[in-house]
């Protein structure tokens, strides 16, 4: 065993680049989430790790051994598929015991191991059932048990929750994370759902257009998004276009101050991002970055309220706890504060290249 590493992995389908030169390490025993919108190459990357696709370039190593061209059936990586891919012609127990049976494990022993695994995923006693008799959640548990049966070196999951309804999904995320920590197996989960990634992962890798945008813990990714793409994809953000001038950022006629502004040369175009919950709303206090805004819409979400505002900086969304006393009505004008430490700044890219290529100024940070 040992750590799994990718070295400059790429996959092209004709002209299309599905995965574009990715280098990553997956530390042993950790759960890593590959997060990105559909078509970002995350599933292709996972399938190359599983050995189901051959990369057009780069290497995959496992504990220092090159496994780039080792076929899937020789890798001993367990995988859970989006559709679960349970075999309808086999019983639940035979599905779980599949890897053991074809490896030549005696029937009795394989069945006993399968039953222990079913116990582990809380499906004890369902071994005789047909796949068609199971609910969506039960199917997922069977798929997990089946992938774990061969005691895999790496455990791979491709959008494992997408076939479940919303409530069940959250329960399963917690349960899967607990199971993974108990077994200590190196795990990679592909998902497009940031909540799912944040619930389960030690580390999140955000991908876009075949490249890695950012790699970090859930907290790092949320609070310090490395690119505008990440800021927009993970959680919500208010974006403002501006230009650096005299150590401050001009958004229209308004000058905003923030610590990192000084790093940008005068006149360089930048993009500012600010989380809706980071903007303060109300009369109180003086200080930098204060603007006025008129409320155009209030979205009541129960625990929180979203205020849609028209300001000189453009349209902004501000999130406030619904228990707070100040609750302006539509049409009222309010004072807003954008705390300098809550503002994130990115170099603004020419409109035609939104690929999120990492600018060197920021990579050095």
């Amino acid at each position: 065993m040992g750590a799994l590493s990718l070295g400059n992995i790429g996959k092209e389908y004709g002209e299309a680049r599905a995965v574009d030169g990715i280098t990553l390490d997956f530390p042993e025993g950790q759960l890593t989430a590959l997060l990105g919108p559909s078509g970002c190459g995350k599933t292709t990357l996972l399938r190359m790790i599983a050995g189901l696709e051959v990369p057009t370039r780069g290497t995959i190593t496992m504990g220092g051994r090159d496994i780039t061209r080792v076929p899937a059936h020789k890798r001993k990586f367990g995988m859970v598929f989006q559709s679960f891919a349970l075999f309808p012609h086999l019983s639940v127990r035979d599905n779980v015991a599949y890897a053991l049976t074809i490896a030549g494990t005696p029937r009795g022993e394989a069945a006993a191991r399968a039953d222990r695994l079913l116990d582990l995923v809380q499906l004890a006693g369902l071994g005789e059932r047909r796949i068609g008799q199971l609910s969506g959640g039960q199917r997922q548990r069977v798929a997990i048990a089946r992938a774990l049966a061969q005691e895999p070196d790496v455990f791979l999951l491709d959008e494992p929750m997408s076939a479940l309804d919303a409530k069940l999904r959250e329960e399963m995320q917690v349960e899967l994370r607990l199971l993974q920590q108990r077994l200590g197996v190196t795990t990679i989960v592909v998902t497009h759902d940031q909540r799912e990634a944040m619930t389960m992962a030690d580390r999140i890798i955000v991908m876009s257009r075949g490249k890695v945008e950012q790699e970090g813990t859930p907290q790092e990714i949320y609070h310090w998004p490395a690119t505008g793409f990440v800021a927009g994809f993970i959680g919500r953000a208010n974006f403002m276009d501006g230009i650096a001038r005299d150590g401050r950022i001009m958004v229209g006629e308004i000058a905003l101050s923030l610590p990192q502004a000084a790093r940008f040369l005068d006149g360089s175009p930048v993009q500012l991002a600010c989380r809706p919950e980071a903007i303060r709303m109300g009369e109180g206090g003086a200080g930098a970055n204060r603007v006025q805004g008129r409320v155009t819409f209030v979205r009541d979400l129960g625990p929180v309220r979203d205020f849609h505002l028209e300001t000189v900086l453009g349209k902004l969304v501000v999130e406030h706890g619904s228990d707070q006393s100040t609750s302006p009505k539509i049409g009222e004008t309010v004072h807003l504060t954008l705390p300098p430490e809550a503002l994130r700044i990115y170099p603004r890219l020419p409109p035609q290249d939104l690929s999120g290529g990492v600018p060197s100024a920021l990579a050095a940070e």
Partner: protein
Amino acid sequence: MLRRLGQLYMSLAAVVVALPVVIVCSAALNGGRTMYFPPENPTLDRFGEFFVSEPVWTQALGNSVIVALGAATLAVLLAWPIAYALWKTGARQSAMLAALGSIPFALPPIVFGVGLGFFWAFLGGLGSIWAGIVSHAVLFLALPLVTISIGLQAIDRAHLDAAATMGATEALTFRTIVLPQTLPYTISGFFFALVLSFNEFIVMFFVSASAFATVTLQIFNSLRNGYTPTMAVAAVAFIAVSVVVFSAVARWGDLPRLMGADQSRS
């Protein structure tokens, strides 16, 4: 009103379709040597003649069974690798092979029969039961080819990936996933070929060169001498086989799907 009209139309169609079959079947009960409808002196003696006592018929029945079983088996064995290659690679040459294999079924049977007659005369197989088996296998190759292809297309490709990640080689995947999942379709293809071979006669007529006779050939040959109730017994037997076989296909396979029904509705 319109609903009623529809039901009436369907019932009428069912009656017309069933009519000649029912009449032939009831004619099997005739006591005498002539076909009457309604039957005179109803008796089951003719069944004994057909299945047991008359060598002409028992031999023909034996030949029919041998040819049908042999041809259906051979057709399935030929169809499997062609369908599998087509599904696995999707290559142009596999598609061509499949198209070629379906030609005999699409032609007017008499033309292919004449051709096979010449063909076996050249090879010296004319009149041998082996030639009959091979001829029918080729004629009905299209049927298992289609059903097995439908079955293969029904396999979720993720199942193959799943098997691979669990350590299955391609050969093992084939044995443990592909074969069992397509078994109903293979059996359906086998049965389709079996039943049609059982009932086919014009190709067999040219290939057998009167050296042996199947049941349908025997009836065909004595068409001009008039019918006897024993022939009707043969019809009863054949209908029974068809109904049993297709019921089995409907029970264990997905008949509407095999016939091309949409999967999303049920």
